[in-house]
């Protein structure tokens, strides 16, 4: 073989390519194919770009040559390189009169340019001209380009001509015109909104392909607004009927299914039209039933129609009989061996349970199989389904599954998505705070920095506020268990920053609250946290605050704190930090340490993070200061408005006497209007604006509040003042959890409260369902106990739930009814049928599983072969030959190709890809 190839190559030297391309291009493809590495390929392509750049610029390139250059540009761009230098030549080529060149030009342009590219404007004229052409192929080429290249601004330039083409004698042109208008609708709906009647007229076109193009457009239009199209239901139903009854031309058959693509499109439209509309839906029931009956579930396309039918049935007004059928189809999908069908089945089930939640029970084992399937896509889809059917009683199992799943994937997009789902479910259904905190910790640990900051705040808030009831014991228990859990987590390496932030905050706030850990121990832990992430300033801020709090608590309790050496060095280091926020925090830390015990107790009270901070807006503590200033002859304070009013009259005067001091006069009072307390300060008390710089006041306010020496801090509003001082002292609120948490207007705690109060009820209901649950585990079946257990926890309690609704009935009927009520969920009788079912299935549906170990491809084709008898193409021949010969029945043809390519000396990917010559169907 190898020898043959070389001979072939030698023979082919200098000969023209059989594929109508030049030798050079073939050579290029060949060398790229033979490239051993990505870098080599890169080099070849770059060289090609260089040579093209040079040659394309030459004057008088023959047009045919130019066409080839442009095709080569397309090739280069397809390989991911920039070919923008040649765009203009492609545009020029569209002007050519020769159809072949024109089409190549259009093709290149549609591949190169986006609709907002600058060069588009140069093509509009050509397009306009071509749309008027007598040759329908030219028209088509232009229309194809229109679909890709026309943007909102240029629509008006071509719209009239395209509307005209709607009545062109060639159906091909009419179809493309419809598609172009559809595109315009997508771009800017208003430009074609007056054309709705024209669309509807085309719906009755005698050519099915035009009609099906209209369907695409209709779908999008109805998606935007259903109302104007309601009257179409009858005609759409009749079209669907015709399609189903084989009344469309034979050429639209696909694997003996009549016009399946048209059917699917129609079903989609009907689903939109029938949503919440009983009258319209009743019109459809008949034909839908017909489809369900007629569609053949052995071919892929038949299943596609069935699935679409299920979707339609679940979105229109419900019809119990048809829903029953839909459920049967779903069951068939789920039991199928094909992963594709399982996937569709899971999706269909997700839609069905919205309407009839109880149908999930029948498929529990199938669902669990899918959940444990090695196929990632299927697994993810199943998690979607579980997410949809989460209730308070199965949330723990489902969330556990989801967490397990995100632990194992690396795709950030889905990590984010699924962890946000976990958080949502946990917030909504959490059975206990303890569980919620644990779950959140897991999510943080796995998804880490993908979790939004808000969730961390919610979690800290929850820990701080506890269950929300007045039960202090439970709360402190919760906190100490949280501390315990976090100390445990800290032992693991590489934790995400956001989790460490939460941990630091919790340790700072509650680390020593229950007395089981010494301050030194906690501080040591905090220092360890910092050591794991040296570059994380935000985290350092959290840690410094936490250390400050612990020291303050200790001192307030009358103990002395000896800072361990690591801590001291950590703090020292931060004095010189680049982050001003961190510097501020350490300086504050230092200041706090020097304070005496009482002050500390009031500025950093224990467990007060969720107490509201009351701001003394009147700044009454400044009154005496102001009075003394006034007494010393300062001018009384004027409010901003007053000053402005005065300013109008006395600009001169103020200018005069302000003169040099104008800065002093105004600056201090304009700034304060932004921060709240300062604004209050401005309006509150009367003191001379000239007397004192605002910053002085500010700092004095702080010293007033922090140093208890100040006489103003009267005992009754002492705490308030000091609390305010705390807030100020700890820098910007964004970095201080204690300032932030109460400020955040999140109602998570509310939702948690609600769910936890609900959790009480659920807990009791779970208790009641617990005994059967344990019973269920007992009887040994072929299905592994674990799976059943899972099924029980996913569906069983759910089944119990659904049974719980008709509880009234149950009670009336007494115990006799209660017994069968349980079995419908997964208990003893239930496990028996499902395995039988599964076995039955593998026997009764031989088509799919029998060949399955073979290539899936071959599998699909064997299905095709049974269906595609109508076609006379080579495809069929391939199929007829069966799977015996890989080359199919026309080995001559393949051999010819082989020979030809050898002649040219092309083996595009050397020895690496022996399949190059293989028929795609082979």
């Amino acid at each position, binding site marked *: 073989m190898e020898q043959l190839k070389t001979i072939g190559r030698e023979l082919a030297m200098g000969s023209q390519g059989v594929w109508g391309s030049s030798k050079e291009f073939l050579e290029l493809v060949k060398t790229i194919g033979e490239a051993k590495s990505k870098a080599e390929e890169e080099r070849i392509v770059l060289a090609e770009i260089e040579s093209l750049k040079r040659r394309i610029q030459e004057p008088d390139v023959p047009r045919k040559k130019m066409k080839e250059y442009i095709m080569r540009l397309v090739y280069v761009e397809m390989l991911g390189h920039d070919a923008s230098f040649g765009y203009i030549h492609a545009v020029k080529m569209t002007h050519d009169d020769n159809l072949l060149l024109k089409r190549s030009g259009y093709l290149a342009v*549609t591949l190169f340019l986006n609709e907002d590219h600058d060069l588009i404007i140069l093509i509009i004229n050509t397009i306009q001209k071509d749309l008027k052409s007598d040759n329908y192929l030219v028209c088509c080429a232009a229309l194809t380009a229109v679909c890709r290249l026309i943007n909102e601004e240029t629509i008006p330039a071509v719209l009239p001509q395209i509307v005209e083409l709607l009545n062109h004698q060639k159906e091909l042109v009419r179809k493309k015109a419809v598609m172009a208008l559809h595109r315009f609708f997508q771009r800017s709906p208003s430009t074609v909104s007056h054309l709705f009647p024209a669309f509807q007229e085309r719906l009755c076109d005698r050519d099915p392909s035009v009609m099906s193009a209209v369907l695409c457009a209709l779908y999008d239009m109805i998606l935007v607004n259903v109302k104007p199209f309601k009257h179409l239901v009858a005609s759409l139903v009749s079209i669907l009927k015709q399609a189903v009854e084989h009344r469309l031309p034979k050429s639209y058959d696909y694997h003996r299914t009549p016009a399946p693509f048209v059917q699917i499109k129609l079903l989609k439209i009907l689903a939109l039209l029938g949503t919440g509309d009983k009258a319209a839906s009743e019109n459809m029931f008949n034909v839908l039933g017909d489809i369900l009956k007629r569609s053949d579930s052995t071919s892929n396309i038949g299943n596609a129609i069935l699935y679409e039918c299920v979707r339609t049935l679940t979105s229109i007004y419900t019809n119990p009989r048809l829903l029953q059928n839909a459920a049967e189809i779903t069951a068939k999908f789920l039991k199928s061996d094909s992963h594709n069908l399982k996937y569709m089945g899971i999706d269909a089930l997700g839609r069905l349970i919205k309407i009839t939640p109880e149908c999930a029970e029948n498929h529990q084992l199938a669902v669990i199989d899918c959940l444990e399937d090695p196929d990632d896509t299927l697994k993810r889809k199943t998690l979607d389904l579980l997410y949809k059917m989460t209730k308070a009683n199965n949330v723990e199992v489902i969330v556990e599954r989801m967490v397990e799943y995100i632990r194992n994937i690396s795709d950030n997009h889905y990590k984010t998505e699924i962890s946000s789902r976990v958080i949502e479910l946990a917030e909504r259904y959490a059975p206990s705070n303890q569980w919620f905190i644990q779950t959140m910790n897991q999510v943080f640990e796995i998804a880490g920095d993908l979790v939004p900051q808000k969730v961390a705040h919610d979690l800290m808030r929850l820990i701080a506020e506890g269950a929300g009831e007045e039960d202090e014991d439970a709360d402190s228990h919760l906190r100490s268990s949280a501390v315990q859990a976090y100390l445990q987590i800290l032992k693991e390496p590489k934790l995400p920053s956001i989790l460490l932030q939460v941990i630091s905050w919790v340790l700072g706030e509650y680390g020593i609250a229950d007395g089981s850990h010494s301050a030194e121990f906690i501080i040591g832990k905090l220092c360890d946290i910092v050591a794991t992430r040296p570059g994380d300033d935000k985290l350092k801020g959290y840690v410094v605050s936490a250390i400050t709090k612990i020291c303050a608590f200790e001192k307030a309790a009358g103990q002395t704190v000896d800072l361990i050496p690591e801590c001291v060095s950590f703090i020292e280091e931060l004095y010189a930090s680049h982050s001003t926020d961190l510097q501020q925090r350490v300086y504050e830390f230092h200041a706090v340490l020097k304070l005496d015990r009482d002050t500390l107790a009031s500025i950093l009270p224990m467990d007060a993070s969720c107490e509201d901070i009351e701001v003394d807006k009147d700044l009454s503590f400044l009154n005496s200061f102001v009075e003394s200033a006034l007494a010393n002859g300062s001018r009384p304070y004027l409010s901003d408005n007053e000053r402005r009013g005065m300013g109008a009259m006395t600009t001169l005067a103020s200018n005069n006497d302000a003169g040099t001091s104008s800065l002093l006069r105004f600056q201090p009072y304009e700034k304060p209007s932004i921060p709240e307390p300062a604004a209050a300060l401005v309006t509150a008390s009367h003191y001379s604006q000239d007397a004192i710089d605002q910053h002085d006041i500010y700092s004095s306010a702080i010293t007033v509040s922090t140093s208890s020496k100040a006489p103003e801090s009267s005992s009754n509003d002492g705490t308030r003042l000091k609390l305010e001082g705390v807030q100020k002292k700890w820098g910007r609120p964004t970095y201080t959890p204690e300032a932030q948490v109460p400020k955040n207007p999140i109602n998570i705690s509310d939702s948690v409260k609600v769910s936890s109060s609900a959790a009480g009820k659920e807990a009791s209901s779970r208790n009641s369902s617990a005994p059967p649950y344990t019973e269920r585990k007992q009887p040994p079946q072929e299905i592994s106990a674990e799976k059943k257990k899972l099924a029980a926890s996913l569906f069983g309690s759910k089944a119990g739930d659904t049974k719980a609704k008709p509880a009234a009935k149950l009670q009336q009927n007494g115990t006799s009814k209660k017994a069968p009520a349980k079995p419908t969920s997964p208990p003893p009788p239930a496990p028996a049928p499902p395995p039988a079912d599964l076995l039955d299935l593998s026997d009764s549906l031989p088509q799919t599983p029998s060949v399955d170990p073979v290539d899936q491809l071959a599998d699909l084709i064997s299905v095709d072969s049974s269906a595609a008898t109508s076609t006379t193409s080579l495809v069929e021949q391939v199929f007829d030959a069966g799977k015996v010969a890989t080359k199919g029945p026309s080995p001559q043809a393949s051999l010819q190709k082989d020979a030809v390519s050898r002649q040219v000396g092309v083996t595009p990917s050397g020895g690496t890809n022996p399949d190059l010559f293989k028929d*795609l169907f082979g």
Partner: protein
Amino acid sequence: MIRFVLLISRQGKVRLTKWYSPYTQKERLKAIRELSALILPRGPKLCNFVEWKGLKVVYKRYASLYFCICVDSEDNELDGLEVIHHYVQVLDRYFGNVCELDLIFNFHKAYFILDEILIAGELQESSKKSVSRVISAQDTLVENAKEQASSLSNMIAQATK
């Protein structure tokens, strides 16, 4: 709606790309890279759908080529699968036992055929017959044009002799 069509060989080489939604060159490369990494290693028995950035990619392998189309998450996947098959059947009809090499060297033809089947991300023609009719009409037109051109040039050549 179909967002893009992608043909990749088993070695991860791109054979054809068609983008129906605007993607920058950078995004295209990224998409191709990510999808090859996602799809190529998948076993033959797994399902033919992959979720990707909130969209779905339906793929099918024919010999050494993977045909992938990216559709909206609400679209019918089996339908997408059949669109692919439809395209391959039309290609097969046109080339006669189509193989990867045909697509490599005649990628512009493959593009033309794709343009007849999909427009603006929607299936526009589900009849194989009419697709092949259009394509052959174009081909014959081209042939005619060539003949005309050559005969014209002959005439001119003779006249100028």
